[in-house]
């Protein structure tokens, strides 16, 4: 979950609801978790210094908290991508028909 969120936030700055919607859209609903679970994960990433949040006011609606990658977050995302590709490649070797 953490790596997926880093990947999405790496595309552009997003807020919680938008992240859930993008996660569902970009994975064709393959990843469809309870929506609220994204917030503990976001707070964890923020506490780890991988993302930073800022509030943005919205007309006639509750304000939104947008998240962006920090430099540490960019490094973590790059490392996570490498490790994920290694895993997929290794699994693919075994599972390929």
């Amino acid at each position: 979950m953490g790596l997926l969120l880093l990947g999405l936030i790496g595309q552009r700055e997003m807020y919680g609801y938008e992240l859930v919607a993008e996660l569902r859209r970009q994975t064709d609903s393959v990843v469809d978790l309870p929506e609220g679970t994204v917030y503990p994960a976001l707070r964890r990433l923020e506490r780890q210094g991988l993302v930073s949040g800022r509030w943005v006011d919205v007309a006639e609606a509750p304000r939104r908290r947008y998240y962006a990658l920090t430099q540490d977050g960019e490094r973590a995302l790059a490392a996570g991508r490498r490790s994920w590709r290694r895993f997929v490649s290794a699994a693919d070797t075994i599972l390929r028909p």
Partner: protein
Amino acid sequence: MIPSGAERRLRGHVDRVLRSAHVPTAEREELAEELYGHLVERWQGLVRGGVDEAAATDRAIRDFGSADRIGRDLTRTYRGRFWASTIGVLLPATLPRAPQPRIAWWLGASLRLYALFYALATVWGVGHASPVRAILWLLFGAAATALMFIAAMALRRRQRWALDLAIVVNVIGFLYGLYTMLTTPGLISLNVIFSGLLLLLAASQSDRLGLWVRRSRPIRNAHAVAILIVILGGSISPAIAGDFPDPTQAAADDLHITASMTCSNEQSRDGTVTVDLRWDRLDLLPGGIGQVSGYGDMLILEMNPETSAPFGFSSLIDVETGERVAEPNVFPPAGDRVLQNEFLNGPAMIGIEHRNLQPGRLYRLTWEFDVWDGVDVRDLQAGVEYWHLDDFRMETLIDCDGTVLEWWRNPPAGS
């Protein structure tokens, strides 16, 4: 904007999440705003998609996920996995708005009071028990103490498990007090009065207490069993710690002891009893870190005062160096038990500072004794006992012809 009914339900769901989540106060408000904003946007999207308002509210809440699960995830984020799976489960994050019934307050106070007693008993026990026993005592005592403090907080937060635990703790306190009263004539136990009164009041106000905890979060059976083990373990550890096997303590097999008796011819009518002893290994901190002095072992000679008596002052000697390591007429801690034996007198008893001994060394004690006129030395018998702390004693019976009986092992008298 959304209708007030939907807003109330969506805010209620956010409240439930935050009630389950141990989040720093400074962040609660912002988190609530963020979660509520999400629910509102979801609700608006559903309504725009043609779902009616009531159904959109239900759906937004359902899609958001269980308040307990998200609350637990948030707790794990801020407090760590271990904390979330223990205290986070037992203790809701926020205090209820409803006033606490008086009896619930008193039950909480009893938990804090018993926690204090457990803490004091644990500190004393850890300071006076041998290492493994001290660790056992510390584990159960500290866990039980912490658990009762948490339960007192959880009772304020209307948790049924804490109410049940308060009842169990007071029942244990009442029974312990009753046992103490029955075994100590004339004693009035405060436990019996305090816990007995509380249990009566709790029984008479069980309806109010039931209402107080009616919205309690259920706990898993595994947690309930763990709580019971901790409380029972903490309650009985003072009683069982002393008998718990501790491999850091020497056993009877580590002691090699022999005794012999010599009797001179019938003209002089005197004789000696010689005891040789050697420990393969000695106890590690047998009286705990809190006991820095005091006698541990005893060596005792028993003779029938109608036929003979030891005389002079014999010491326990290190055979190799000739150094005295123990003297007679010093009173070991277990002396009160020795005094109950009418056949003993001063010179026949040696208190041995356990820390003065060293493993592998041979120690010897020689008693001289007088035989009364008219007594046939062939009828003389002497008993020799070695008492090791409160753990065991070794005994034998000897006569002038050699050992009559083999050494045998007994639990200490009075134990």
